[in-house]
């Protein structure tokens, strides 16, 4: 049997109990950032789970990180405001210089520095990331950045951001994914010096923005790894992200299933609990089975990742199956609650909106299916 991290889970559960539905409802109404919650998780050291011990983190693998995120979501909380602090640093860890690692990682582990923003997507290039237009051109010992990013989340609550930009035109490179580079930008210095942040109000309380670069000058030392290899660098962080997001979906699904089961047991109509009806029971049981199956794939993907095995297919399948399971559970939970599911005080409608995101972000289900068709089943590339 694999480790379940019960010690870590119970501590996370206890911390999350301090942030009940009421806390999240209020934030949702105000579209406010969960500062207190993030502070608590940071102080508990949970966001430094993946940072090696030599840089003052806990040096655990992805399996432990998935336990933390799953537990946060199962408790009815939402980790989206801080999960990126866990994994964005992965690019710096794997490809940064020793000087960059020593300077940034211990401060990211302690929470003194927040690195939880990553600028990749642009208005004219979504999943087709090789077509990005933002440029970073070398000028002496600086790079000059121009362009625009969209859906860059948590920029307003981050000190540093990773940026993917073209350092040489697409046409000049033999392969379409060459010529892009990754930079670590100090947001605190960049704002009003060429960086403009504009929040995007959305269906859920998710601190996302669009950012504009207008002759932003950054030191040449901001470059991570080698110039031109940035796209490869960000690809290997994506499997981790997908597995982690999948664990949040599992947590959501568990929350919906428990919420629905409790309601079905307690809600009396026509003199009996609605849960006595198979028409109510079966969708709950089905959602449970779907969640349990997806959970196995998430665990498998995390174990493969931790063992250093290629896990592109498993990470993608975990994300898709878990997102489908959480959405199935969300729909079932709303249906079980009937009209009360629409009342904000039950938290179901909010979680329903929140978990819908995972059909789309960080990768849409269609792209996962395309990946499986092309890379696993050897069918022609369809896009």
């Amino acid at each position, binding site marked *: 049997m694999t480790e379940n991290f019960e*010690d*870590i889970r119970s*501590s996370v559960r206890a911390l999350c109990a301090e942030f009940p539905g009421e806390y999240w409802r209020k934030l949702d109404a105000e579209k406010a950032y969960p500062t207190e919650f993030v502070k608590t998780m940071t102080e508990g*050291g949970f966001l*430094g789970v993946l940072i090696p011990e030599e840089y003052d983190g806990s040096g655990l693998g992805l399996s432990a990180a998935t336990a933390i995120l799953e537990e946060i979501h199962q408790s009815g909380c939402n980790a989206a405001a801080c999960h990126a602090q866990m994994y964005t640093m992965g690019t710096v860890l794997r490809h940064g210089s020793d000087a960059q690692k020593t300077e940034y990682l211990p401060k990211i582990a302690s929470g003194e520095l927040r690195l939880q923003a990553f600028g990749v997507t642009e208005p004219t290039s979504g999943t087709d990331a090789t077509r990005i237009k933002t440029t970073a051109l070398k000028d002496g010992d600086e790079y000059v950045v121009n362009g625009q990013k969209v859906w860059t989340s948590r920029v307003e609550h981050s000190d540093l951001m990773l940026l993917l930009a073209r350092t040489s035109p697409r046409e000049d490179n033999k392969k379409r994914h060459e010529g892009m580079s990754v930079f670590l930008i100090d947001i605190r210095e960049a704002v009003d010096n060429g960086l403009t942040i504009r929040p995007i109000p959305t269906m859920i309380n998710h601190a996302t923005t669009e950012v504009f670069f207008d002759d932003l000058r950054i030191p040449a030392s901001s470059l991570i790894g080698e110039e031109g290899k940035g796209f490869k660098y960000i690809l290997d962080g994506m499997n981790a992200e997908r597995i982690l997001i999948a664990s949040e979906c599992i947590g959501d699904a568990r929350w919906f299933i428990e919420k629905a089961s409790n309601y079905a047991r307690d809600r009396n109509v026509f003199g009996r609990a609605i849960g006595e009806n198979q028409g109510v029971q079966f969708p709950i049981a089905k959602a449970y089975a779907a969640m349990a199956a997806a959970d196995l794939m998430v665990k498998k993907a995390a174990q493969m990742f931790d063992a250093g095995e290629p896990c592109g297919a498993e990470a993608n399948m975990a994300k898709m199956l878990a997102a489908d399971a959480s959405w199935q559970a969300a729909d079932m939970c709303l249906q079980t609650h009937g009209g009360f599911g629409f009342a904000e005080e039950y938290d179901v409608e909010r979680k329903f909106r929140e978990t819908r995101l995972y059909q789309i972000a960080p990768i849409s289900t269609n792209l996962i299916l395309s990946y499986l068709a092309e890379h696993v089943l050897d069918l022609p590339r369809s896009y």
Partner: protein
Amino acid sequence: MKVLVAIKRVIDYNVKIRVKSDETGVETTNVKMSMNPFDEIAVEEGVRLRENGSAEELIAVSIGPKQAQETIRTALAMGADRGIHVETDDEVEPLAVAKLLKALIEKENPDLVVLGKQAIDDDSNQTGQMLAALVGWSQGTFASELEVADGKAKVTREIDGGLETIQINMPAVVTTDLRLNTPRYASLPNIMKAKKKPIDESSPADLGVDISARLATLKVTEPSSREAGVIVEDVAELVDKLKNEAKVI
């Protein structure tokens, strides 16, 4: 000063207890277990004494099955220095626990033993008092405040109708009440550190203590379910019912 805290692994306080169908006890298979909440308070108090420099060492002891080591790890993650696990799968009654703790006191020579006033599974509220009697130490039970200085402990006790503050000589046994402190949650770095802290393993036989049961459980049953109330028309009817039906006035 050396402090010893005793902790018990019990059914988690959030779990809805189910009685076994054969009425021999409550269902514990596949039930979430955790540290007795009163014992968490004891550990927290020990950690605070450790942090403010009053104590040099904090030892967490648990008596129970193999899995009790998980409970000890929790105490180590909160800040205890090392653990002692006395392994047994048998049910251990308060007197046997007190005898085992006495044997450990003789080995470890602590100056202070802190334990929960009772465990939430059997609610015995006996172990601390029995232990103090067996070792001939002072006792401060139901503590809501504890100050240790100059070989004495000032204990504020929660008693019927108020608080009582007593001063007792050390070494002493103190049992915790709910308001003594709010236990901390273990941080991830401390959970990791706890994995490397030592846990000594022993058994009742090693400590030369006979733990055989002195009590026999005849049966365990669910509390009878509460019946629906009635709404009375007026005060006169209420008084009549209290007098003649309930016979309480």
